[in-house]
């Protein structure tokens, strides 16, 4: 049973949910995925000056704060694996 589940295609309901999650984050803070990508490139450039990082496994995303309200701003979450620190 479990094996069948693993190979099963992602359901359209889940696809809709995932698409909306990404879309609403950029809608809410008025930041397009393009801007986010530019920022990501800048962050990589900046950090690379001091240490070499694993660009393939790094992750820079905007996380939504689930509770709504005035002071519930989304936050920028970055997980950047370091390969080596430059001397």
């Amino acid at each position, binding site marked *: *049973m479990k094996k069948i589940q693993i190979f099963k295609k992602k359901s359209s*309901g889940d696809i809709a949910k995932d*698409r909306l999650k990404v879309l*609403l984050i950029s*809608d809410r803070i008025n930041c397009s995925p393009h801007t986010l990508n530019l920022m990501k490139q800048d962050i990589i450039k900046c950090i690379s000056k001091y240490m070499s990082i694993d660009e393939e496994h790094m992750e820079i995303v905007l996380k939504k704060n689930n509770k*709504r309200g005035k002071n519930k701003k989304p936050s920028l979450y970055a997980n950047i694996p370091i390969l080596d620190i430059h001397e």
Partner: protein
Amino acid sequence: MCEVIVITSGKGGVGKTTTTANLGSGLAALGKKVVMIDTDIGLRNLDVVMGLENRIVYNLVDVVEGVCRVKQALIRDKRYPGLYLLPSAQTRDKTAVNENQMIKLIEYLRPQFDYILLDCPAGIEQGFKNAVVGADRAIVVTTPEVSAIRDADRIIGLLESHETKQIDLLLNRMRLDLVKKGDMMSPTDVVDILGIPLIGVIPDDEQVVISTNQGEALVETPSLAGRAYRNISLRITGEKIPIELFQSISFWTRVSNIFHKN
């Protein structure tokens, strides 16, 4: 004490007017004194959904322009003695009324009613501003589709900046059979995305089309959608009723489900 509730959605065609008509009827059936105001100037619809289109003499624009008294424009419903409709104008546009005029009208009606329901037009322009300005709370109607949910999220953001005290979500046209197959977002998914409390789920029910055709209230029918609207009306009055997920699976679907089980 009177409560002013705006029924809004952002996207058109998700069921704001049907919801307004049925919550109005549902609250009136509970013995409350209710007035429904159609704020969709130029695209009047609530009157025809209520089956009151032949009784209109004056409208919202006549009232704010002082052509008639408020009392003259209110139409009494044919079923419930405590239910009134203030119809919108069909020949004017949204700019015919402004926010101050709406506040004045609501403050005038407040002492006379238990609930004032405002049927908001689609969009986020002047019509939306007129509808939300005087509201104490909002019911955001959405369907489990990406476009409707995106617009609902935008509307919730705008309502929050308007400092609407309470914002609830009403999920319309839910199909539990599709949710079970994974082809529709579940109520939990939608609540998770939008982050506001759920006030009720209306199943996709053919009785909605039938009742609207006849200009009758759904809440009077024994249908699933009618029961869902009755429950939401009770929740508005403050009763704690658990949210039901109505299952309307036909006999043949059940039989075919047996054969399709993995």
